[in-house]
């Protein structure tokens, strides 16, 4: 590990230790924050109940669906927009303003339309995640160096071969970074939606525990969600790095 890595680890461990100490000594009231050790023990207890498994399944399946639609759909749409100048001109103002809109303001509307359940969550998360993929795909295809396309023509590649052998690999770094964002945004969309208004899912469980003043359970679940999502994001990140490392990117 690098020097910065060691310092970071020490810092995080120290922060957790300090929090533990502050909670134990009563410097921080248990009505505010529970001690990290208690978060962990409660988490273990919570995970042993099967009801949490159900919530976890709901959340993860919604995320998985939203993520798949966002990645595949975003890639296809990005590709088509890049290919057809007219469509691109028509849509690019939408795309430029897209992430300025606070999407969650439309969540109540989605609930009215689709009812309480997984569908509005999936729609919200997909809408949130897909455009990142569209933008990344377009940016990647835009930046394919022209001389590589000329090289493809010199080798007399067919259109399909040119796309598969030259355009996509050349655009891959951008596309992968869009994929990484789409994964993170799908999690954010689903869990935030569950949190605001939902009948199941991990986000809902956290909100429920908060409403019932069940702090230990709430903190345990927060720890759990942040842990899972960070692990997942790190896995995608590591995968992306492995894909790109040899290019020296």
């Amino acid at each position: 590990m690098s020097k910065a890595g060691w310092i970071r680890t020490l810092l995080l461990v120290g922060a957790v230790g300090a929090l533990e100490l502050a909670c134990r000594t009563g410097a921080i009231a248990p009505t505010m924050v529970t001690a990290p050790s208690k978060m962990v023990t409660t988490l273990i207890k919570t995970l042993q109940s099967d009801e949490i498994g159900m919530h976890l399944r709901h959340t993860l399946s919604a995320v998985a669906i939203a993520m798949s639609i966002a990645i595949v759909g975003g890639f296809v749409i990005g590709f088509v927009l890049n290919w057809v100048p007219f469509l691109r001109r028509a849509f690019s103002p939408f795309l430029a303003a897209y992430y300025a809109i606070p999407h969650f303001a439309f969540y109540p509307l989605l609930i009215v339309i689709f009812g309480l359940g997984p569908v509005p969550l999936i729609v919200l998360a997909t809408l949130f995640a897909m455009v990142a993929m569209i933008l990344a795909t377009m940016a990647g295809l835009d930046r394919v160096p022209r001389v590589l396309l000329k090289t493809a023509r010199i080798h007399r590649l067919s259109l399909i071969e040119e796309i598969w052998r030259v355009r996509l690999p050349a655009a891959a770094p951008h596309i992968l970074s869009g994929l990484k964002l789409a994964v993170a945004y799908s999690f954010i969309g689903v869990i935030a939606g569950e949190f605001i208004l939902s009948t199941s899912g991990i986000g809902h469980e956290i909100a429920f525990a908060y409403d019932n003043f069940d702090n230990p359970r709430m903190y345990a679940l927060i720890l759990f969600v942040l842990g899972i999502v960070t692990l997942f994001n790190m896995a995608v990140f590591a995968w992306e790095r492995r894909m790109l490392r040899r290019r020296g990117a």
Partner: protein
Amino acid sequence: MSGGMLTLRAWRDPILVAISLVALWQVLHEIAGDSAVTAPAPTLAHLWEMIGQARFLPHLRETSLAFLQALAIACGGGVLIGVVLGGHKLTGEVAEPILVALYSVPKITLYPVILLLFGLGMPAKVAFGALHGIIPVVLFTMNAVRNVNRTYLRAGRAMRLTPAQTGWYVLVPATLPEIFSGLRIGFSLTLLGTMLGELFASQRGLGFLLMTAIDLHDVKTILSIAVLISIFAIAANAALLAIDKHLHRGAAPEVSGKP
């Protein structure tokens, strides 16, 4: 090319966007019906009427105040932290992965913690909005400061500039475009965070109105408020984007080939 044509072209895109959005809305209405999506015209009329009502204004003020305070913290604090992290290499390396990780987790899960720390009400919303907005500002500022070309600083020394002059004539112009891009994204995310905060456990503000409208199944109000927020967000973003482009005008064009 005449000036008239230029302004026409500058306005063409936004107008087209607005028209097509309203058209899309109308189509959705035709498909889904009044109980799910109300038509544009009556909704906008409802919005207009709502804005005129006295009981609406306190909510608007609450949200605006929360947003502005959060924005001030996100921008001011973000630039400050970013400059420190960018200027001191090791600190930046320690902090960056934490910031990136924090950027991509669902921060809503931290909201209960903020509520417990700050209590229900304005401070919690401000803190939550600022939490969303500050990260991109820090990351962009850090990178801007980090990537200042060392040769510029050497050139400054060669021209015998004082540190203050170096700061003002070299560092600020060199980093401003990147920092501003961060501020623009910070603006959007602060708005998102503030709204998110209001949707949960809130007793005042536009988010609160949205949630009460759900209970009443009042689609017209839901849409009105969502549209109001979106118009504000898009207009502000367009203005910021224009400034952003202006600041980036001297930057090297996108490279299409490799060095």
